[in-house]
Structures are given as C-alpha cells and as structure tokens.
C-alpha cells in the first residue's frame, strides 16, 4: 500500500517507522525543514518538505495513487483540510484524521473523513474499562453499519445475576457474542448460560439499543 502521512510530530514519526516496518510504501509530509532532515538522515528518502494541506504538494507526492492518507498534525483544522483535499482533489479512497477535540468527530464524519482518532477518547475509554461505574464500553464501532462491539461487566448487586441468558430481556438488535467469567476462559453464550457476578460480556449492538442492552444485562 502507498500511505501518505501528514505531520512529522511524534505521532507522525512513530507511525512512519511502524508503517515502513510493515513493508508499506510510506511518505511523510512535513513543513519544518529541520524535522525533514532528521527523518531523512535516519530513514532515507521517506520525507517530503511541504504543506500537506496544499493541493499542489499533494499532487507532487503522487497522492492520486495513494491508498490512504493519514493526517496527524497537532491541529484539527489542518488534519481536516489535508484529508478533504486528498479526498476531493485526489480521490484517495481512505482518509484518517487525528483529532484533539473529541467533539470534532461528528463534523469530520459529516465531511466525509473515513476515520477519526482522538487520543482523548481512547484514554477515556480505557479509563471506562477500568472503572466499574461505567459498565458499558465500546471496543469497536462499525460506523457504516451503525453497529458497535461493546464490553459489559456485571457488577455485584445486578438483578440479572443467577438468571440464564434466555431469561434476559435483550433488545432485538443486540447479540451476545462472548462471556468471559472473572476466573477467565471465554465461553460462547447459549440460552442456558447463567450470568454471574464479574462476568464480562462482549456483545454486538446498534447505537440506539445500547442503553436497553445495558439495562437487560445488569437489571434496572
């Protein structure tokens, strides 16, 4: 794959390294000549000096044949524009933008950016996974299908403890995929599987029925 990375900060630097190691053709676009020099000295001809938001620069580096453009500068607006230019001027099939402000995910999605990555959200999600007051966490979202893979932990005191799966009032759009008991070992749930305290349940659900699913699994 030919992947273009815009922004040679820490994220861009390590991303470039990792993608090169995976054997992709990768090019980093960076404005700062000093950063370009450091990267070229270390990794060879994999860095282009220029503004990754400029159509002319993107044309020069052959964005037209790129499979993916990843914009990871520190500024949301620059990442947005870079992805938009790649999409609209060069028909790049997949664009990924780093965002600082998690709220921007909505706008970016509306404007056709395929994937947004927010470090704030990622950290929040790992906090949620650790903190029992947030029993439902997102593991993966399938944006185009409006589905999410979620992880629900059964806390002590849940009214569903001791019930079997078939007795749960699950919303129609939700499916239980896996139950991981606190002692470990994953099981595929059957209608007769009993819910225990500390179980970790991996389920697939639509956004809408998330709350219903949580209620069904943990009781009111």
């Amino acid at each position, binding site marked *: 794959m*030919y992947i273009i990375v815009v922004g040679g900060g820490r994220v861009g630097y390590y991303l470039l390294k990792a993608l090169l190691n995976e054997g992709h*053709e990768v090019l980093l676009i960076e404005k700062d000549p000093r950063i370009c020099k450091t990267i070229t000295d270390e990794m*060879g*001809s994999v860095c*282009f000096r220029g503004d990754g938001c400029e159509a002319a620069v993107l044309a*020069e*580096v*052959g964005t037209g*044949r790129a499979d993916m453009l990843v914009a990871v500068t520190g500024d949301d607006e620059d990442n947005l524009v870079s992805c938009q230019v790649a999409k609209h001027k060069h028909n790049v099939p997949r664009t990924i933008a780093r965002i600082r402000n998690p709220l921007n995910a909505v706008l970016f999605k509306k404007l056709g950016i395929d994937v947004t990555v927010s470090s704030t959200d990622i950290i929040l999600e790992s906090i949620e996974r650790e903190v029992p007051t947030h029993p439902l966490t997102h593991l993966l979202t399938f944006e185009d299908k409006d589905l999410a893979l979620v992880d629900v932990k059964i806390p002590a005191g849940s009214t569903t403890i001791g019930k079997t799966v078939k007795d749960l009032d699950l919303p129609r759009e939700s499916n239980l995929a896996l139950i991981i008991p606190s002692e470990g070992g994953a099981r595929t749930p059957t209608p007769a599987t009993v819910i225990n305290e500390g179980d970790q349940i991996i389920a697939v659900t639509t956004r809408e029925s998330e709350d219903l699913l949580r209620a069904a699994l943990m009781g009111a």
Partner: protein
Amino acid sequence: MEFKKVLVPVVGTEADEEAMRLACRLAKKDKGKIWSVFVVAIKRALPLDAEIESEIKKAEEILDRVESIATEEDYETETDILQAREVGPAIVDEAVERGVDLILMGIAYKQRFGQFSLGNVVPYVLKNSPCPVILYQQ
C-alpha cells in the same frame, strides 16, 4: 591509494566523459573494475518500479557513450541503470553494496537563482559516502 573498485555515477554532461577517462587511468594500474551507473529518479506520482521508457532510453544512450569512452581509453566498464526516489542516496547505497573504494564523479558548473550551486546530489554523496570521493568539475 589502490583503486580496485571504482564507481562512476553519470548524468550525461561532458564532465562525465572526462571523469570516465580519469577513472580508466586510475583503475588500469591496479586492474580495477569500473562501474558506471545512471540513476533514474522516479517521481512520487509513480511507483518505484515504474518503467519510464524515455528515461531508460536516455540512460542507455548516456551509458553507451561512457562505455565507448572506456574503449577509447583501452579499458572497460560495466554499466547499470538504477531507479530511485533520490539520486544521492541511490549512489551511496550502490557504493556500499559494491564495496567500492572510490566514487569518481564529474560535475558541470551550475547556477541556480543566479548563484553557484552544487545541487543536492554532490553534497549528499560527499557527506554520506563510505569511501573517498573525487570530484571533477569542468
């Protein structure tokens, strides 16, 4: 100094021819081997293995010319076309790979924006070469 393996990067200027003559004279004494290479720089708009016929034809003509210079000097050279994103690193990589003990390149006097300019290939080679470098400026 012994010159068992000499690399002569060429670009198609007259300076190349003089550099080639000099390489022949230097290598002859030690029965050294001379490689002349032409680097085709491939723009990012194309994949690295793209075959640009016009460039390859040009490269072949230039390499034929230096080969005939070697013959005139009663010596011989092996020729090769390299494809790379940038010329400087390609020359240095080739020198490392072949383990040459001399890079000999001819350069033409050039101006850029009204000022003398070495371009970016020569400084790169001088900075990163694994072996001695001789520049011949015409």
